[in-house]
């Protein structure tokens, strides 16, 4: 029998399989080289990079919650220059397509400046616009967490995507926030503005409190929730967006194993990203690729594309 085909396309990018890693949960890939053969990944998405280095948020930055975790890293990263000089060469050597996630605290111009820099680099296969990080807007006080994300405003999203689209021909992915009333509005805006794909979801704003000390468990109180706890909501959002837009969807949110990854394909995702699961099982991505292959074989499906959005309803 012919091999099952796992190849998918997003924008100009042809991926040998639909397995990606979620930004910020895979470092710069080198952290995982002892555990898996990194070449087997469909694509590697880097930790979000900003123009200037960022030291990130105060500690504590993470805590566990029921079937999930909170994080408030605050986009700690070395900045674009150091990233290109120190991280990109090793990433390139791996051989899997590298998608660089970029963000700005509050300046849309920064997105275009970053995209311009990356556009010139052959080793960059694509750019993901992180317009949905809930832990940015460099406040140092837990009392001032009023953050308006670009991904919470269709007009703002449109402007950023449009501006970046003008400066790069590279595959462009827009990462959406689940912290909205109607995620399809933002997805539609991004599509109209020229994004090649949307990725969803980023983390849900959330809290956890230590009742003994009466302190929030995260220094800045509000943080982003990820892991299996968010999976059903993320899945519903992928399903909603799938019915409204025609560019590919990269689905994520609590994918832990093959069956949870398959759920996302059935809801309409063309690719999936593994995030929090990398912390628990660094081999999760590779195991899921094998699991998907087996599922397709067992169900006599020759091509992963036949699965996308193929829900029995």
């Amino acid at each position, binding site marked *: 029998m012919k091999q099952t085909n796992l190849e998918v396309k997003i924008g100009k990018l042809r991926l040998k399989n639909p397995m990606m890693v979620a930004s*910020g*949960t*895979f*470092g710069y890939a080198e*952290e*995982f080289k*002892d*555990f898996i053969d990194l070449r087997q990944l469909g694509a590697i998405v880097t*930790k979000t990079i900003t123009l200037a280095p960022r*030291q*990130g948020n105060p*500690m*504590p*930055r*993470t*805590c*566990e919650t*029921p*079937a*999930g*975790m909170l*994080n408030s*890293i605050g986009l*700690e990263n070395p900045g674009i220059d150091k990233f290109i000089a120190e991280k990109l060469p090793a990433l390139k050597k791996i051989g899997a397509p590298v998608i660089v996630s970029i963000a700005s605290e509050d300046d849309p111009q920064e997105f275009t400046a970053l995209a311009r820099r990356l556009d010139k680099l052959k080793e960059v296969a694509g750019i993901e616009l992180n317009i949905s990080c809930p832990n940015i807007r460099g406040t140092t006080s837990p009392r001032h967490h009023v953050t308006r994300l670009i991904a919470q405003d269709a007009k703002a999203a449109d402007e950023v995507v449009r501006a970046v689209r003008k400066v790069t021909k590279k595959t462009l992915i827009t990462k959406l926030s689940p912290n909205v009333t109607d995620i399809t509005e933002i997805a539609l805006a991004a599509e109209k503005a020229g994004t090649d794909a949307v990725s969803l979801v980023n983390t849900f704003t959330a809290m956890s409190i230590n009742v003994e000390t009466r302190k929030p468990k995260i220094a800045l109180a509000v943080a982003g929730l990820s*892991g*299996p*706890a968010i999976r059903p909501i993320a899945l519903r959002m992928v399903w909603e967006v799938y019915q409204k837009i025609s560019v590919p969807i990269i689905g994520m949110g609590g994918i832990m194993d093959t069956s949870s990854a398959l759920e996302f394909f059935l809801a309409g995702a063309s690719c999936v990203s593994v995030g*929090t699961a*990398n*912390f*628990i*099982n*660094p*081999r999760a991505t590779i195991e899921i690729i094998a699991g998907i292959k087996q599922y397709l074989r067992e169900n006599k499906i020759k091509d992963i594309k036949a699965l996308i959005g193929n829900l029995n309803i």
Partner: protein
Amino acid sequence: MFQLKAKLFDNQRVKDNYFRLLLRAPQIAELAQPGQFVQVKIGDGCQPLLRRPFSIHRISQGSPRHHVTTSPNYELIEILYEVLGQGTQLLAQKKAGEYLDIIGPLGNGFNYRATGDGRRATVLVAGGMGVAPLLFLADRIVTTLPLRLRSGQARHHVTRKTVVLLGAKTYRQILCEKDFKALGCAVKIATDDGSRGFKGKVTELLKNILVTSHKSQVTSQAYASCDIKYATIYACGPYPMLKAVSNIAKHYDITAQVSLEAHVACGIGACLGCVVNTRGGYQRVCKEGPIFNAEKIVW
């Protein structure tokens, strides 16, 4: 770094809420350095979801057939833990023969090479469960290094110069006293309530020792000839204790290495969840640490 399914050899209560877990993990045991840790997946599902970090408490040979003549074949790693939350409660229920998914060895480990030259004294300071990585360290200091020096006298020398200070709330939380003594270390105890040894903080005890040795070269039999002025301190315990150790070390101009604890999520340097503020900016406790030179930390 290895991810493997380690067979549980033993999981015994030491006393009260303290347990010792013995796992067969040859790859990890072979590589492990004192101060390093392992990430343990307790339970298969989402409760708890994340792995839990545990210091490597000791490593040992799996079977007696390998013996001293050849270099030891380390196969087992030991973890000392206190049942505190949901994760450790579950861990305490694990039985011999079961398997645990573990990753290790992780982190950087103590730099103890300067210690064994026979001239410097070594002071290990443990606060509560902070004793866990220090037994492995003591073991390496008194056995491995003298072995390399290949001299019985040198070994004796180093042993005599290794002082262990154990601090806890009460005598009930004092752990591993016998183990340190069996290694030939001089052990001193401090309890908050005075139920054993010195009444007060272990850091006060540390200060006392340093003061005494500064006043007179020769002190009690425990560290006679031990020139504590050039000591290296290795400390593990709660943050305030480590901060105090750091201040003391600075005051007496001696070096201290501290093992920091943090909310570790991934344990492999990927999530940036467990950073500490150092003179060189934020650094990852799980990767650049957990052992830091005390003067490097912005306390």
